[in-house]
C-alpha cells in the first residue's frame, strides 16, 4: 500500500455534500480524509441547474434549507468565492387558477419559516415581468431565494476544506470498504488505505452500494435531468423561474446565457448521461412558451448528470441502522445543491455528537426497511 492513513472521519464522495462536511469537520477540529473517484464537484454537484431555492421544498426540508440559506449568505468568507451566488429571487409560475391555489397553499404551509413568499398575478404580474409568456396567470415569488454557479461553488467547497486541512484524494475510487466493529478500512487500489471510526456515505447516485454492503439496501435510482443553455442574450431577467407542478426551469446568468432544464436525459452508462433529442425538443417548446423572446435564440450546449432518487424524493440523511459510525447523506433527488452545505454541517454534527441540531427525522434510512430490496452480497 503506497499510503496508509488513520483519521477521525473518512468521507466517500467529494460533491457539495461530502466537501462541505469535510469543511465543517475541520472547523470542529476533527481529522478528515475524503475520497473522490473523479474530481470534487465534477458530477451532479457541479453540473446541476444552479438553483438556490427554498421555496417549493417539502416542509420537512425547510429547517435544513433555512440553515443552508444562512451558509449561502456567507459564502465568500466560508469558501473564498461568491460562486456567482445571487439572491435574485425565485419565481414559481402558475399556469392555472389551480396552480395558483397550490402556491397559495404552500405559502400558508411554510408560513412558520418566514420565507417571505409573495404571490403575484394579473396586472402586477405583467408589470413585474413583461417578458413572461401568456400562459402564466400568476406565481409565487421568494425574493431571497436565488441562484449560483455550481461549476464554481461545489469545487470551491472542496478546496476550502483542503485549505482548512482536510486530506482530499481526487481520482481515487473507493474499491473496498470493511468494518471490524470499531474501524472502517477503505481502500483505493494499492494507492491508499484509510482507517477511521466514522465514515460518511456521500456518494450521491452511487451511494446505494455502500448502504447495501452494510445491510441496509435502499431503492436508490439514478435520474438524469435534461439541461441546455443558450448563447448570451441581453440581460432581461433577474429571477430564477420554475413552474408549479414541474416542467421547465430557467435562469439567466450574469454572462447573459439562459440556463434551462426540464425533462429527463439519457443515460449512456452508470456514470454518464446526456440530454436526449426528445427532451431537448420538449424543452424548446416549453422554453418559448415561458419566455417568448427565446424563439430567436439558439441552444449552444446541452448536458445532463447522474442524480440519486429515492421513491419519495426525499434524501437519506442520518446514521446507519446496522453499523455504528456509518452515516449516510445521499439521494437528494436533483435538489441537493441548495441544502448541500447544511447537510454537510449536519453530517459533521452527527459524526462528532451523534445527533444533529437540525431536525432530520424525515430522512432516516429505516423508512425503507420494509420496502427495501434484499442486501446483496458484496
Amino acid at each position, binding site marked *: 500500500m503506497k499510503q496508509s492513513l488513520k483519521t477521525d472521519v473518512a468521507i466517500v464522495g467529494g460533491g457539495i455534500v461530502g466537501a462541505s462536511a469535510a469543511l465543517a469537520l475541520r472547523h470542529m477540529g476533527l481529522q478528515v480524509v475524503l475520497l473522490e473517484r473523479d*474530481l470534487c464537484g*465534477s458530477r451532479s454537484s*457541479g453540473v446541476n441547474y444552479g438553483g438556490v431555492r427554498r421555496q417549493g421544498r417539502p416542509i420537512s426540508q425547510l429547517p435544513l434549507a433555512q440553515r443552508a440559506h444562512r451558509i449561502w449568505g456567507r459564502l465568500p468568507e466560508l469558501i473564498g468565492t461568491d460562486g456567482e451566488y445571487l439572491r435574485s429571487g425565485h419565481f414559481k409560475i402558475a399556469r392555472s387558477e389551480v396552480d395558483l391555489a397550490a402556491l397559495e397553499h404552500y405559502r400558508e404551509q411554510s408560513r412558520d419559516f418566514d420565507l417571505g413568499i409573495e404571490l403575484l398575478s394579473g396586472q402586477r404580474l405583467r408589470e413585474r415581468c413583461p417578458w413572461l409568456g401568456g400562459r402564466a396567470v400568476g406565481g409565487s415569488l421568494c425574493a431571497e431565494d436565488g441562484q449560483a454557479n455550481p*461549476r*464554481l461553488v461545489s*469545487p470551491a467547497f472542496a*478546496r476550502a476544506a483542503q485549505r482548512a486541512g482536510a486530506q482530499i484524494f481526487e481520482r481515487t475510487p473507493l474499491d473496498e470498504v470493511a468494518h471490524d466493529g470499531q474501524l472502517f478500512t477503505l481502500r483505493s487500489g494499492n494507492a491508499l488505505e484509510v482507517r477511521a471510526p466514522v465514515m460518511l456515505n456521500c456518494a450521491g447516485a452511487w451511494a446505494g452500494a455502500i448502504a447495501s454492503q452494510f445491510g441496509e439496501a435502499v431503492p436508490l435510482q439514478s435520474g438524469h435531468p435534461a439541461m441546455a443553455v*443558450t*448563447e*448570451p442574450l441581453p440581460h432581461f431577467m433577474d429571477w430564477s423561474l420554475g413552474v408549479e407542478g414541474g416542467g421547465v426551469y430557467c435562469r439567466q446568468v450574469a*454572462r447573459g446565457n439562459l440556463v434551462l432544464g426540464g425533462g429527463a436525459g*439519457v443515460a*449512456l452508462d452508470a456514470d454518464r448521461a*446526456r*440530454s*436526449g*433529442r426528445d427532451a*431537448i*425538443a*420538449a424543452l*424548446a*417548446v416549453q*422554453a*418559448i412558451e415561458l419566455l417568448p423572446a*427565446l*424563439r*430567436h*435564440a*439558439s*441552444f*449552444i*450546449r*446541452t*448536458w445532463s448528470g447522474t442524480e440519486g432518487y429515492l421513491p419519495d424524493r426525499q434524501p437519506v440523511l442520518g446514521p446507519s441502522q446496522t453499523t455504528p459510525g456509518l452515516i449516510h447523506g445521499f439521494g437528494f433527488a436533483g435538489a441537493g445543491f441548495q441544502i448541500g452545505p447544511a447537510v454537510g454541517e449536519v453530517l459533521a454534527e452527527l459524526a462528532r455528537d451523534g445527533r444533529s441540531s437540525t431536525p432530520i427525522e424525515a430522512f432516516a434510512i429505516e423508512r425503507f426497511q420494509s420496502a427495501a430490496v434484499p442486501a446483496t452480497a458484496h
Partner: protein
Amino acid sequence: VTEPALQPVIVGAGPAGVRAAQALVAHGLRPVLIDEAGRAGGQIYRRPPANFQRSPKTLYGFEAPRATAVHAALEAVQDRIDYRPDSLVWNAQGGLLDVLHGPTRTTHSVPYRQLIVATGATDRVLPVPGWTLPGVYTLGGAQVALKFQGCAIGTRVVFMGTGPLLYLVAYQYARAGVDVAAVLDTARLADQFAAVPAMLSQPAVFLKGVYYVAWLRAHGVALHGGVRPLRVLGDAHVSAVSWHDGTGERTLECNAVGFGYALRSETQLADLLGCRFAFAPLHRAHLPERDRAGRSSVPGVYLAGDGAGIMGADAAEWAGERAALALLADHGIEVDPARAQALERRLDKLSGFRRGLERAFPFPQDWAAHAPDELVVCRCENITAGELRDTVRACGADEMNRLKALSRVGMGRCQGRMCGVAAAEILAHATGQPVQQVGRLRGQAPIKPIPIQLASAPAQGVGT
C-alpha cells in the same frame, strides 16, 4: 443486392464523403449523403454559388482537375443517392442522426445502420494578441472568401502561421491580384530543407509547394521564416502586424491578416457516437481511432478523411473509398480486395510524406510559453491566457473539462472548436504536463448552435 440490414449514411460531402458515396453506389447501394454546405466538394473543393462564372482553373489552380473530378463524381451518382445538402448533423443518439435543414429551418432524425463520418477539418488556431480585430481571418477563412465568393479579406494582406496552406493561400491571393505584404512562417527554412527527403515520396505535391514558394518569391512577396508573431495592431480594424524575427521586432502595415497553423479535425460527431479516442502525436491531437480501412471502435461506424486526422484531400478520397469498401465487406458484399489493398498502400505511402510535412512546418511548441497573459484565448467568452493560468494556480485545474468548468473557456458558441487547441497548450504549459495529458473537451450536442424554435419540428425519416 441491397439487404435490409444495410442502411448507410455518409456525413460530409467533401472528397472523402463523395468517394465513399460513389463506391457504395457502384455496389448497388443507395446511401444517404448529408452535407452542411449547399454544394458538394467540402472545404477544399468548395464551389461558388451556381450563378458564379469563374472557371475551375481560376478557383482551384493546380487542384482544378481533382476538384472537377470530385464534383463530377457526385453529379454522376446524384440520382442514385439520397443527397441532402444544407443539412447540419447536430446530434447522434440511438441509431439516429439529428439533422438541421438550414433553408427550411427544420430538424429531423435520420436513421442509419452504417455510418461513414467524413466531417473534415477547420483551421488550427493559435491566437496572437489582436486576433479579434476586424480584418483578421483564419487561412481557411481567407481561402473560402476567395473561392466561394470571389472576395479578398483585404487589399494589403499579411499571411502568417505555418503549414502548407500558408503558401497556397498567399499564392492564391497574389494570383487574384491582392497585394500580399508578407508571408510570415513560424517554421524555419532549415525545417523545410530537413523535410525534403520525406516529402519527395510525393514528388508532385512537393513540387507544387516548391512552386508556390518560388512563384511568391519571383513576384516580390516577402517571405520570412523562423518568425514569432507578436501582435496584430489596430484600433477598430487591422492596421499592421508585428513579429519577432530572431534578432528584433519588426512591424509591417497591412489591412488584413490571414493566419493559421495547419488544420484540426472536426471530431465532435465521432465523439457523440461513442468512438474511442487516442492521442496521436503526429497530429498533436486526440483523435478517434480507426484501423487501416477506416473502421472506428464502434461497430458500423467508419471514419474517413481529415475528420479523423489531417492527411489532406488526396488521402481523403482514398480513405473515403476504402471505408466504403470496408462497410460493404463487413456486411457480406463482395468487393475487389486488390482495390482495397491498393488504397491502403497509397494511404500508407502518404504517411511518410505527412511526417515530412510536420517536420517542414512544425507545430510551434513554444507558443504557450510566449503567450502573454492578456492574450484572448477564447474569443466567444473573452477568456485570456492569464485567466486560464490563474485558474490553474488557484483551483488546481489540470484537465481540459475542469478548466472549462472553472474558467468558461470553450463555453461559447464555438464550444471549443476554435479555442480548444490553444487552451490545451496553455493548460499543458501551465501545469508542466505534456499536452496529451490534459485530455480533450467532451463532445456535447449540439455540434453547432441550433435555433431553439426549430428544435421542435416533427421527426422525419429517410426518403420523406
